[in-house]
């Protein structure tokens, strides 16, 4: 039996390359049919347990005995050994010493490899399939590595990097998982702390963003400049992604206490953020244009509105400062880098996942390990089903959506519409390009029938918007209230033929969170519109 309602997104309908299914259409409701979804990179999201996960990475482990618990499953060449829970690659450089596991990959597919590497001496290790030199990458210093690559052969090889030189290295916790770069994200960030039965996740669509720091999870790396903050990179704790890879920093005596990128990241219009979890400190600062913004762990308050604190699970908080801010992106324990940290000497905070990015607001976390890294913008467009859209002949309808902004200052339009592949006949809503205003509009024959582009919105709340369009009776409802109405008789001069998370064609993509989209093939009554958009719950 078909449902008489639909919640977007519907998790089982999410799969690579499209969003939504047609399983839930009924006699009067058009549900956007599978949308063409593309991103072509990985992206992170928050799962129902509040943990940061990578969308598109399979749960299936493809390596057997990746923890080297037994001396099995790996073929050992050139003197490689397995002992004491490690794979050891030690030699004088004359042979290609390596550990190989057969039948790990499928040719042509993309994989994620994670591995703990210890380099005691020599030029490091390389990670590859059976025929392509270092096609996944190489490691020259000890650390936890994540590599990605496309397999050209079915075997997985971990070997010494360069011949002719003695080497002594080992690996542990080797993991290989298949990757799909076009899996949409159902995100639970707004649902953290809610009972599972009350959680209402949302489809998360974000713009392109690049994390400009080089090692976002390793603050002991030389890519960071550190003044009087000790980094414990041995006794790691569980981070927001659920693995033990977060480090503890401790304030030491001195005139200044700070960590910042060793190579300055130029620009004052960047946003930066970091995950923190308190050990025994009072405050944690991020430097901003107004001096320093800091978070007080006891009161759970921020010192000024430039700083945002978002709670994740297990005591973790993501602190974000919006631009403009001081040219140098630095953080530390205390209310500032100098006198404001003197009382914190000896105090500690766990840190993880710093991100410096160019959107004027913080986006989902982008991990880095050695270079800047980009998550592509997401496109989710081109849903259509003949006979369900309003037309010249059958012009009545109601378009409804429940959605939430990523920011209160977009700087560009962020829209979702039903349209005729132009802006002549178009009904939609989203966010205005000017700060903190919704954009709601119905156009027919390139003339505005009804609109409201000046409603302010609370960025912390989902908005419920409905546009009723019927010759002689048009109205806009927002969160249970009618905010506009008129009796325009303006007619379509073209048939609506698609739903897009953009304005039309390739313009003004919608970036935000979406819980539900509906297009009714009739003009709803005032009572129905009030009930539909009621935002009490």
């Amino acid at each position: 039996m078909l449902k008489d309602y639909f919640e977007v997104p519907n998790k089982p309908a999410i799969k690579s390359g499209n969003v939504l299914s047609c399983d839930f259409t009924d006699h009067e409701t058009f549900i956007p049919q599978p949308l063409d979804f593309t991103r072509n990179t990985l992206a992170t999201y928050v799962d129902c347990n509040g943990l940061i996960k990578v969308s598109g990475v399979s749960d299936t482990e493809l390596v057997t005995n990746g923890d080297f618990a037994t001396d099995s499953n790996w073929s050992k060449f050139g003197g490689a050994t397995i002992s004491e829970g490690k794979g050891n690659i030690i030699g004088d450089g004359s042979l290609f010493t390596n550990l190989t596991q057969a039948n790990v990959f499928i040719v042509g597919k993309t994989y994620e490899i994670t591995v703990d590497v210890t380099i005691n001496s020599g030029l490091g290790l390389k990670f590859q399939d059976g025929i392509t030199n270092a096609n996944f990458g190489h490691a020259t210093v000890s650390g936890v590595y994540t590599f990605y690559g496309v397999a050209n052969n079915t075997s997985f090889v971990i070997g010494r990097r360069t011949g002719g030189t003695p080497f002594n290295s080992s690996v542990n916790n080797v993991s290989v998982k298949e990757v799909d770069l076009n899996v949409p994200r159902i995100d639970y960030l707004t649902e953290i702390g809610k009972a599972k039965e009350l959680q209402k996740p949302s489809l998360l669509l974000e713009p392109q963003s690049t994390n400009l720091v080089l090692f976002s999870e390793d603050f002991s790396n030389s890519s960071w400049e550190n003044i009087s903050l000790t980094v414990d990179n041995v006794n790691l704790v569980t981070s927001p992604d659920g693995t033990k890879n977060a480090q503890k920093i401790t304030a030491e005596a001195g005139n200044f206490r700070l960590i910042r990128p060793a190579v300055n990241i130029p620009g004052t219009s960047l946003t930066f953020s970091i995950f923190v979890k308190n050990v025994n400190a009072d405050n944690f600062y991020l430097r901003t244009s107004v001096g320093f913004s800091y978070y007080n762990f006891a009161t759970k308050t921020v010192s000024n509105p430039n700083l945002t604190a978002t709670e994740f699970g297990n005591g973790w908080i993501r602190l974000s400062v919006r631009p403009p801010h001081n040219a140098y992106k630095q953080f530390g324990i205390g209310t500032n880098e100098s006198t404001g940290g003197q009382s914190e000497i000896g105090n500690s905070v766990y840190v993880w996942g710093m991100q410096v990015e160019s959107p004027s607001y913080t986006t989902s976390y982008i991990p880095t390990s050695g270079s800047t890294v980009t998550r592509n913008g997401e496109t989710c467009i081109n849903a259509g089903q003949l006979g369900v859209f309003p037309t010249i002949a059958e012009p009545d309808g109601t378009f409804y959506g429940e959605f939430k902004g990523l920011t209160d200052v977009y700087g560009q339009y962020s829209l979702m519409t039903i349209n005729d592949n132009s802006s002549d006949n178009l009904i939609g809503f989203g966010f205005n390009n000017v700060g903190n205003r919704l954009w709601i509009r119905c156009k027919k024959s390139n003339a505005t029938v009804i609109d409201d582009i000046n409603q302010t919105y609370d960025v912390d709340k989902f908005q419920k918007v409905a546009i009723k369009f019927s010759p002689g009776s048009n109205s806009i409802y927002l969160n249970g209230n009618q905010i506009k109405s008129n009796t325009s008789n303006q007619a379509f001069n073209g048939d609506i033929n698609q739903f897009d998370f953009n304005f039309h064609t390739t313009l003004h993509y919608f970036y935000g969170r979406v819980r539900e989209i509906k297009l009714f093939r009739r003009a709803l009554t005032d009572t129905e519109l009030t009930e539909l958009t009621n935002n009490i719950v």
Partner: protein
Amino acid sequence: MSIQIYKTNFADETTGKAALVAAGVWAEVTEEGVTQMVYTNGTQAVVDIGKIVKTPGTYDPDGKEITPPVYYPGWCYDVMTTDTLDFGSNEVYPTNPAHGFLGWPVTAEVPPTPPAEEEE
């Protein structure tokens, strides 16, 4: 649909932006009073990397520059596309790339065209 990643280096930002327009990678579009660069054809992403640091600058604890950084020549863009493009001498093949796409090897890029064999 095959994805290609190109790493490019131009004399400066303006030259690079114009070259990418000429190559059909993106275009400047104005609609609803807003002008923006819109990806065209098979473009999936353009990343304005800018100057690449060769030698880091030094800074005092207050963030003030003591010695300026030294940069490699030129201005860099990375392009991800489904199109086959030819940036000529502006395409580069760094051995230690400054930028990657999440889920791709940092060295993922279209391999250089092998030099033509000399005729005897």
